[in-house]
């Protein structure tokens, strides 16, 4: 345990070293030697964890979610199957459909292609977290008003993509909306209404071109 030059040891022994270091670091932290403590903290964060379940803390919609999960568990899996946050949907599990879109900070990502363990320490927002005090967000209201949904399975993903867009672009064009939503699929074919809803949420009314003719 005295080896302070881990670079000089072989890969395997180094990993053994890191694994055993976990306990050493905890003890050393009490020594109150700041430099050593900081150094150990840094090395300690490089410790190897898994493959079995490890503690993971996610901050989702302002609440802490403490889980014991394997490093291979994706963020989507963690939300849907290790907690009851089923708002983000699984449509492909391969970063192609967007039903699992959540915000990491203000950034939309595919939660199916993100390890939960890597989503720690940053605010995660799912569709469940958009309504504040039971008041729906502008985007949610616009989706309802424009009927930007049918089966609704892709809806949480689209809502998150549009929400993210409007956080950084207050006056999006139709092309901006299309660019932001290119990574979301909808099989019911709600795209025209989704476009209208996104623009409506940004304050632009964009009526459907529908005409009704009554023949008696």
């Amino acid at each position: 345990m005295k080896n302070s030059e881990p670079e000089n040891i072989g890969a395997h022994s180094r990993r053994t070293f890191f694994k055993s270091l976990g306990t050493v670091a905890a003890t050393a932290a009490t020594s109150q030697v700041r430099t050593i403590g900081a150094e150990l903290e840094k090395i300690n964060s490089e410790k190897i964890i898994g493959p079995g379940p490890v503690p993971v803390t996610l901050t989702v919609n302002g609440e802490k979610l403490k889980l014991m999960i394997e490093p291979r568990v994706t963020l989507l899996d963690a939300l849907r199957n290790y907690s009851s946050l089923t708002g983000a949907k699984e449509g492909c599990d391969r970063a192609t459909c967007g039903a699992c879109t959540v915000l990491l900070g203000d950034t939309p990502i595919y939660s199916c292609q993100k390890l939960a363990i890597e989503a720690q320490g940053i605010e995660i927002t799912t569709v469940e977290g958009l309504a504040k005090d039971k008041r729906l967000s502008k985007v949610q209201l616009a989706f309802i008003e424009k009927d930007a949904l049918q089966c609704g399975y892709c809806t949480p993903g689209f809502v998150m993509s549009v929400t993210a867009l409007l956080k950084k672009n207050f006056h999006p064009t139709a092309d901006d909306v299309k660019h932001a939503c290119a990574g979301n699929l909808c099989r019911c074919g709600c795209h025209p209404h989704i476009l209208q809803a996104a623009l409506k949420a940004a304050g632009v009314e964009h009526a459907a071109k529908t005409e009704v003719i009554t023949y008696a």
Partner: protein
Amino acid sequence: MKAFEYATAHSTDSARQLVADKGAYIAGGNDLLGLLKEYLVEANILVNIKSLPGMNKIEHARSHWTIGALVTVAQIENDADIKKHFPGLREAAADVASQQIRNVATVGGNLAQHSRCWYFRHRDTQCLKKNGDLCFARNGENRYHSLFTGNTCISPVVSSLATIFAALDATAIVLREGKEIRLSMAEFYQRAWENPLSHNSLGQGDLIVRVEIPTARPRSAFMQVSDKHAFDWALVSCAAAAEVVDGKLKSPRVALGSISNVPHQVETANQFLDGKVLDDATATHAADLILKDAKPLEHNGYKVPMAHALIRRTLLKLKGDA
């Protein structure tokens, strides 16, 4: 996806140590997790390299710009300076996948991504790239495959950034066994041409740390054609870069993606274009030169006229307002 260990590296040395013989680096993870989920790659440890210092910056020097390997594709897309100085790079970044992917995808990951050949990506076909003894694509469903097919594996490079980097004559700096090596885009993918098991020239433990782009070519452009308008792989992509002095091209370079295992570049075409004033005839002749040795397969002959059109259009975009 098999179970794996996980660690976060804070230095390139420890990253190398941790990844050892059977581990994999994870940055954005888009490609890696896809590969792991299909059991196409099996890693006993994932080494998170996102905390490595200094690798997520775009830095400007007079002769070249440096883009850290951890810079995301979205960062490039949204960087006003890049848009001004390397417009083609910005265009290429904006065409990468979808917003959700661009937000996490890194420059390093985009360059290092594995083949998208649907035989390679399929969990139940044992092709050359997976140590099988047969290329299914050569006489099979090869609509998305290479036009330059004189080697064994005919799955093309699909990295959009590689295409524009090649045109910009950028260099990837790779940390190999503790030393930095410098690879042109041609060199970065050369091994994919030679060895069907390879997707690029990286070896186990090699780490891309940054890309250096010379500032010699202030004009650049990128175009691609896909089956769909967006979020679809390029059938063919094309990048061109040059300086334009008195209306004439200086140090022009053209590169194409999705038609060869390497970014396809033809030196005689670059030389032909050097000093020329761009017009339809020049662009057409350059396209002819670039595609001269194309050897289409049964289902991808369409890529020849498509690539030809893209070369002409991308070159003509270099004219800009001048």
